[in-house]
C-alpha cells in the first residue's frame, strides 16, 4: 500500500515533465502522448486515459500547454496540444531541477556503492 502510493506520487511528479518534453518538438494529441510514453519507456511507464487527460487539462489550465481541435479529412476531429511559451520556460526549469536532483542522488548512491 505504502509502496504503491509512493510509486504514484513519483509518477505524478515526473509526469508533467514527461508530457511537456513530448510536446516540445511538435503538437500531439492525447492518445499519441500515451503511446509515446509507453514506447519510449519501453513499457515501464504507462498512463491510462483516466489519468492522462486530467493531467493534460491541468497543464492547460496553468497555461503551459494549449489544446486545439484539428480536423483532418476523413477522420474524427482530434484535440492537439502544443507547448506555450510559458510551458517552455517551465520545462527548462524542471529539467534543470531534475538534473540537479539526479546528480545529487547519484553522488550519494554512488558513494555508498564504492
Amino acid at each position, binding site marked *: 500500500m505504502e509502496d504503491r502510493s509512493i510509486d504514484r506520487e513519483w509518477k505524478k511528479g515526473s509526469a508533467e515533465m514527461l508530457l511537456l518534453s513530448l510536446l516540445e518538438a511538435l503538437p500531439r494529441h492525447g492518445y499519441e502522448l500515451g503511446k509515446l510514453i509507453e514506447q519510449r519507456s519501453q513499457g515501464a511507464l504507462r498512463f*491510462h*486515459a483516466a489519468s492522462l487527460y486530467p493531467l493534460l487539462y491541468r497543464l492547460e489550465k496553468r497555461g503551459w500547454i494549449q489544446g486545439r481541435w484539428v480536423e483532418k479529412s476523413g477522420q474524427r476531429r482530434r*484535440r492537439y496540444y502544443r507547448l506555450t511559451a510559458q510551458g517552455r520556460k517551465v520545462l527548462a526549469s524542471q529539467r534543470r531541477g531534475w538534473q540537479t536532483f539526479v546528480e545529487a542522488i547519484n553522488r550519494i548512491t554512488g558513494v555508498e556503492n564504492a
Partner: protein
Amino acid sequence: MPDWNEQIRKQLRILNLKIAREAEIVEELAQHAEDRYRELRGGGATETEARRIALEETGGHELLARELRAIERTVAPDRGRFLAGLAQDLRYGFRTLRKNAAFTAVAMLALALGIGANTAIFSVVNGVLLQPLAYPDPGRLMMIFETTSERSQMSVAYPNFLDWRRESRSFTDMAATRSDDFNFTGTGEPEHLSGEYVSASLFPILGVTPFMGRGFLPQEDRHDAACAVVIGYGFWKQRLGADPNILGKVLTLNAMSCAVVGVLPPDLRFRERAQVYVPIEQYDAGLLRERESHPGLSVFGRLKPGVTIKAAQAEIASISSVLAREYPVTNAGHSAKVVRMKDDMVAYIRPTLLLLVGAVGFVLIIACANVANLLLARSTARKREFAIRTALGAERGRIVRQLLTESVLLSLGAAAIGLLLARWGTRLVLAAAPDSLPRSAEIVIDPYVLLFTLAVSIVTGILFGLAPAFHGANANPQESLKEGARGAGGGRHRVESVFVAVEIGLAVILLAGAGLMMQSVWRLLRVDPGFDTRNILTMGTALSPKVMASPPAIRLAFEQMLGRVAAIPGVQSVALTNMVPLAGGYNEIFFWRGTGPQPPQDQTMSAMFSIVTPDYLRAMQIPLQRGRFFTDRDKLAAPPIVVIDDVLARHLFPGQDPVGRQFSVMVLGTVRIVGVTGHVKYWGLDSDDKAKIRDQIYFPLLQVPDRFMSGAAVGQTLLLRTGPEPLSIVSAVRAQVAGPTQDQPIYAVRTMEQIMSGSLAERRFAMLVLMVFAATAMLLAAVGIYGVMSYAVTRRTHELGIRVALGASRREIVGLVLRQGMRLAAMGLAGGLVAAWGLTRLMAGLLYGVRPADPATLAAVASLLAGIALLACYIPARRATAVDPVVALRCE
C-alpha cells in the same frame, strides 16, 4: 462499434460540468477509447475484451471523475445551474416587464401601496414597540409603582421611595422624578417651561452623560442645598442661544435662583418636552415629606446585573408590606410593582398599533390577490409562450421559477416605490398620531425597516406569483397550441374567483373594523361629559415670583388676576382650577366617613379632588343639584367646606340629603358639604364609567391651608367661558394675566373642544388609519371583481351571442352576468362576515358603546360591499347585452 460517448458521459455526470465543457471532454475521451479499442482489436483481442479494457482505461473505477473533480470548475451542481438560470430568468423577467409597461405599472402601483403602507406601519411599530430604548443596557431600566386594590399603578409617595431605595438590594440605584411646570422669569417676557424634578441619581441610572458640565451631585439633591439646574440641549440651543459660558449662570425658576451645572446631550429621549431639570428635594417640601401624599412621582431603577424582574418585584413587594405594617394609616393595603421602562412607555398604544399591523397586512394580501389575478390573466395570454417552451424541453419547475422570478422582480420594484411612499406615509401616520405617541422621534426608516420591506416584498412576490406560476406551468403544450391564441382555462377562472372572494372577505373585515371605530368615536362625541364643552378656553398660568413668598399674597394675586380677566369684554365667567376634565393629570385625595381621625389606609377611600374658585361651576356649566357652590366669602378663616358630586353623594349618603353633613378628608380634616353637583367625566368620555375612582370633591382655593398654598400656586389652570369664539380673546387674556409686574405667563392655551378631541386622539387615529385601509381595500376589491366579471363576459361572448340569438332579453342577459358576479361576492361576504365576527373581538378594548361583531355594523358593511360589487358587475353586464349575436357567432 460501442457508443463511447454515452459510456463516458455517464462517468462525468456526477461532476455536473458546464454542458459545453462536458461535451468537449466526452468527445476527446471517446476518441481515445476508440483508438485504444482499435489498437486492442488489432492486437487480437476479442470485441468484448477490447471494449472492456478500453472503457476501463478511460474512466474505470471512477478514477476519471475523481481526477477531473480537482481540475475542472465543478461549481456546486445546484448552485451553478441555479445561478446561471437565475441570471437568465432575471434578464428575461426584466424584458417581459418592460414589454408590458402598462401591466407592470398597474401591478407595481397596487403592490407599492400595499408594501408602502406595511413599511410605514412597521416603521412606527419598529420605532415604538420593537427597538430598545436609547440608553445603555436598556433592558435593566425599570419603573416602580405603588399599587392598591383600587389602582393597579399609582404614583409613589416620596418617603416610600426613600425607603425602597435604602432597603432594596435588587437595584444599582433608584431615582424619583416629577414632571412640573416652571415659571422662568428675569429675562424679559415671563415664560413657562416644562421641567422635571429629579433625583440626583437619575442621570447615572439612565447612563446619560451631559453634553456639557455635569449632572447633579448627591449633596445638591437636598432641601437645604442651593438650587442647581441641568438644562436640556434644545432649550440651551434655542432659548439661551447656545451660550458657551452657560455653566454657573443663574436662572430664576418659580422664584428660585438655580445655577446651571450641566447641559444634556441632544439625543436624550427622556421626557422629551422637559427643558429644565431641578433636584427633586427642591420640590415643595410640604407635599414631598408626607407619606400620605402621592404627588405624581415616577420612580425609576436600574436592575443589578443578574437580578430578574421577578426577584426585584418580590423584594419591593416585601419592603412595601413592611412599610404597610409600620405606617398603617398611610400604607395599609399598598404594595408595589416593577415594570420594564419600555413596557410602561408603550403599553397603552400597543393594542392600537397591533390592530393597525393586522389591518395593513390585510391590505397587502388584497393587493397581492389583485396582482395575482392580473398575472393570471396574463399567464393565460402567455399560454402559447409556455407551451412552446415546454415543447422545447423546459421543465415544469423551470417555468414556475421563471414566473416567480418575474413576480418577485415586480414586487421588488414595488418595494422601491413603496419605500418612497412609506417615507411619506410615515410622516402622515405621525401627523395623524396622538401627540402622546411615545418614542415618536425614534421612528425612522432604519436597516430593520429596510430588511422588513425586502422580506415582505420577496414573500409577497412569491405569494402572488405562486398561483399564476403553477397555472402557467401546467400548460399542456398540445392543448394550448391547438387551441391557438384564444386559450382560456376553467381552472384559471376558479382560482381567480377564489381570489376575488378572498379580497371581498378581507375588505369586509377591514370595513367592519373601520365601521366599529367610527361608531365608537361618534358615540363618544355624543357622550355628555357632565359640562358644556363649547366656548371654554383653558390655559396654564403661574404667579409672579414676587408674590410667591407669602400665602396671603398668593391668594390676593389670584383674586386680582381673576378680577382683571373677568373684566375683559367677551368673558362671561372665569375660574381657576387645578384639574381640567379629560386633560389628564389627576389629583386624588383620601377621605373617610365620619369626623374621626384617619383610619388605616385600607379603610379610606379615594376621590378626585378639584381645588377651584367660586365661578368654576358657572364657567363649566356643571349643574348644581342641591345646596350651593362656593362664594367669595368662603375664606380660610371659616370652617372648611366642600361640594361633592352626585356619585359621592350616593356613595356616602344613599337616599339622604348630604347637604350639611360632614365627612373627613386627608390633610383638611373634617369638612362640611354645602352642595351637590352633577358628575363630570374627568377620566375621559369612555373610561370614566369604568374608572375605579369616580367620587368627586370640590374645594375652594381660598381655603387651601398656608403650607400648601405655594404648591397650589404653580400649575393652576385658568378657565374662561366666553361669548365670542374662545381663541379670539387670547391676547387680551395674556395681557391681563401678566399683571402689574408683567411676569405672569400663560401657556398651553386650548379650547375645551380641543381637549375633548385630544382625549379621543388615539381612537381617532386608529379610526382614521383603518378608514384609509378600508377604503383602499374596498377599491381594490371592486377593481378585482370588475376585472374578473369583465373577463368572464368576454369569455362568454359566444355563449351570450347564442342566447341573444335564441331570444334572451336584455334583462335576462344582465341577470345572468349579475348572478354570476354576485355569487362570487356572496361567497366573499359570507366568509368575511364570519372572519369579522371572530376578528373584531381582538379590538374590543378600543371600542366604545358598540360591541365587536355588532350586527348593525356588519349588516351595513355587507350591504355597502354588496352594492359596490353589484356596481362592479353591472358595467360588464351592460356590455354583455351589447353583444351582437351575428358578430359573436361569426367569431367562431
